[in-house]
C-alpha cells in the first residue's frame, strides 16, 4: 500500500509539480517529457482497449496481431471490431481537445468549448435537419463532416455577428453569452425537428447526439484522420498567434497581431476540428472542456505544448471511458459521450470548490 502511495505521489509530482524558477531549456524539457509520458499513457490505454471486450485477448496476442502475425480470429477481433472504434475515439479526442484549446485561448475563458458556445449544437442541428428533411440515412462519409462544418460555421458566424460590433474591439463575455443563448435555440429547434423523424432515424439521431462513436467504418476514420491532420497542421502553425492573444486582445494588437483576422481564422480551425469530430463521434463536447483543462495543468498555457498535450489527454479520457462503457456491466449501453460527461462533472465541481 505504501509503495503504491509513493508511486502515485511521484507520478503526481511528475505531471503537476512546478518550480518557481526554471531555465527555459529545463522547462522545455519537462514539458516535452510530460507530453511523451501522456503519449505512453495513451498507448497503454489503447493496448488495454485492444485486449478487453467480448472476446478477451492476451496482451502478447494483441501486439502480435497488430504487427501482422495474428490468427484469423484475433485479426477479426482487432481489425474489424476494436481497432476502428479505438482509432475513432483517439481521433475524436484529438479533435475536441485541440478545438477546446483554441476556443479557450481565443475567449480567455476556461469554460469556452465547442459545446458551451453553441457551435456543437449548430453542427448537430444541421445533421439532424439533413436526416429529417433530405435523406433517410447518411451513406456518404464525406457528407457528415461537411454538413457539421457548415452547421458549425453558420452558428459560429451568427454568434460572431451578434456578439461583436463593427468599430469596437472584441468582447469575450459578449461572445460567450451569445453562444450560450444561440446554443439553447439550436437545441430547441433540433428537438423539434426530431418529431418528424421515423423510428430508425430517431434512434440514430438520439444515439449520435448522446455521443455514440458510431462512425467506425474505416472509410469514415480515414476521412476524419485526413481532416484533422490538415486542420491540426494549421492550428499548430498558428500556435504563436494564439499565445499572443492569450495575453489579451490589447497586448496582441500592440505586438502586431491583426486580432479580428486571427480570431476568425483560428475560430474557423476550431469549428472545423470540432465539427468533424462531432460528425463521426457524436456529441463529445465535455471532452473539449475537460481535456484542455487537465492538459493546461500539466504543461502550462503555451499553445505550442498545450495543443498536442490536450489532444492526447482528451484521447486518453475518451478511450478509457470507452473501455469502461464496453466492459463494465453497469455501464454497458451508456453512450460514451454521456459517460464522459458524467465523469467530467465531479472534476468541475472540484475545480469550482478549489476556486471558491
Amino acid at each position, binding site marked *: 500500500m505504501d509503495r503504491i502511495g509513493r508511486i502515485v505521489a511521484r507520478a503526481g509530482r511528475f505531471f503537476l509539480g512546478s518550480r*518557481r*524558477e526554471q531555465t*527555459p531549456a529545463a522547462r522545455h524539457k519537462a514539458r516535452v517529457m510530460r507530453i511523451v509520458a501522456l503519449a505512453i499513457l495513451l498507448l497503454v490505454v489503447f493496448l488495454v482497449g485492444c485486449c478487453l471486450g467480448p472476446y478477451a485477448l492476451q496482451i502478447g496476442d494483441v501486439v502480435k496481431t497488430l504487427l501482422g502475425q495474428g490468427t484469423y480470429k484475433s485479426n477479426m477481433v482487432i481489425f474489424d471490431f476494436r481497432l476502428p472504434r479505438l482509432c475513432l475515439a483517439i481521433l475524436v479526442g484529438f479533435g475536441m481537445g485541440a478545438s477546446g484549446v483554441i476556443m479557450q485561448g481565443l475567449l480567455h475563458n476556461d469554460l469556452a468549448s465547442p459545446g458551451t458556445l453553441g457551435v456543437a449544437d449548430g453542427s448537430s442541428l444541421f445533421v439532424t435537419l439533413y436526416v429529417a428533411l433530405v435523406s433517410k440515412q447518411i451513406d456518404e462519409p464525406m457528407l457528415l463532416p461537411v454538413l457539421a462544418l457548415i452547421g458549425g460555421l453558420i452558428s459560429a458566424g451568427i454568434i460572431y455577428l451578434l456578439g461583436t460590433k463593427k*468599430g469596437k474591439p472584441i468582447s469575450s463575455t459578449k461572445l460567450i453569452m451569445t453562444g450560450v443563448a444561440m446554443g439553447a435555440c439550436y437545441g430547441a429547434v433540433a428537438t423539434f425537428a426530431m418529431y418528424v423523424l421515423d423510428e430508425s432515424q430517431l434512434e440514430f439521431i438520439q444515439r449520435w447526439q448522446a455521443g455514440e462513436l458510431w462512425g467506425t467504418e474505416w472509410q469514415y476514420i480515414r476521412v476524419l484522420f485526413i481532416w484533422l491532420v490538415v486542420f491540426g497542421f494549421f492550428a*499548430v502553425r498558428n500556435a*504563436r498567434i494564439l499565445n499572443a492573444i492569450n495575453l489579451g486582445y490589447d497586448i496582441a494588437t500592440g*505586438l*502586431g*497581431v491583426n486580432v479580428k483576422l486571427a480570431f476568425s481564422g483560428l475560430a474557423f480551425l476550431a469549428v472545423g476540428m470540432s465539427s468533424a469530430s462531432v460528425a463521426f463521434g457524436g456529441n463529445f463536447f465535455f471532452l473539449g472542456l475537460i481535456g484542455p483543462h487537465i492538459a493546461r495543468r500539466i504543461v502550462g*498555457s503555451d499553445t505550442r505544448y498545450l495543443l498536442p498535450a490536450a489532444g492526447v489527454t482528451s484521447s486518453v479520457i475518451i478511450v478509457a471511458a470507452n473501455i469502461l462503457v464496453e466492459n463494465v456491466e453497469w455501464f454497458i449501453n451508456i453512450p460514451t459521450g454521456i459517460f464522459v460527461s458524467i465523469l467530467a462533472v465531479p472534476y468541475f465541481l472540484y475545480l469550482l470548490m478549489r476556486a471558491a
Partner: protein
Amino acid sequence: MEHAIKTAHLAVGYDTVIIVPDFDIGFQKGKVTSIIGANGCGKSTVLKAIGRIIPSAGGTVIINDTDIARMKNKDIAMQMAILPQSPTAPGTLTCSELVSYGRFPYQKGFGRMSKEDKEIVDWALEVTNMGDFKNREIAYLSGGQRQRVWIAMALAQQTGIILLDEPTTYLDLCHQLEVLELLKELNEKQHTTIVMVLHDLNLASRYSDFLLAMQSGKVYAYGSPAQVFTPEMLKACFQIDGEIVQDPRSGKPLCLSYDLLRKA
C-alpha cells in the same frame, strides 16, 4: 522639432457616441509626454486610438512620417509598443517567456528564438532590473516587479515609441517612482519617445517634458509642465481649486493643496 507621432482630425468614440471629436497633436520625438485630465475626458481613448487598440472614427495617425492606416500591423509593432492599463498574463509564464513575446513582430513560423532575440530579451530584463528574476514565474512577483516585466516586454519590441496607459495604477508610492524612474532612464539613454496617461498630476509634472491636459474630448493645454500645470487648468479640467508651488527638489510645478471648487 521632429514629431514621433502626429494626429490630424482624429475622431474616436464607441457606438454613436463620439468621445474625442477632432484631435490634432504632435508628440515630440525623444521626449516624455503625459496626458492628464479628469475621468472620462478621453485621455485613455486617445492613447488607445493612436495604438489602434480601438478603431478610430475618422482622421489620421502618423508615426515617424507614415500613416498607420497604410502600415501592416507587424510594421507598426516594430515602431511603437503599447502597454495597456493593468495587463494580465497567465501566471505560469516566466519573466523571460513573457518578455520574449516582445520579439513577436520579428519572428516567423513557430516562433523559435534566434540568438539575437535571446540577447535582446536578456538586455530588456537587465535594463528593467529584472535580470535576477528571469526564470521566475510571474505569479510569484510583486505588483511593481510585474509592471517592470511588462515594460521589459515593450522594450524587447525595440521600438522608438512606447505608449503606456496609467503604468502606475495599483502600485504603492515606492513602486510608482521606480516605474517612472525607469521610463525616464529609458528616455534619456535610449532616446525612447514616451507617451503615457497618468492620473497623478504631481508625478506627471515631475517626470514629463510635456503635459497635455484634456477636457471633455478636447485639448485644453499642451506645453511644458510650467505652462500647463496651473491653477486655471485645475479649475477647467478638474473642477479643483489648487495651490501650485515649485517643487524644491525638481523645480517643476507641484500641487500642494487642493479643494473642490465651490459651486457658485
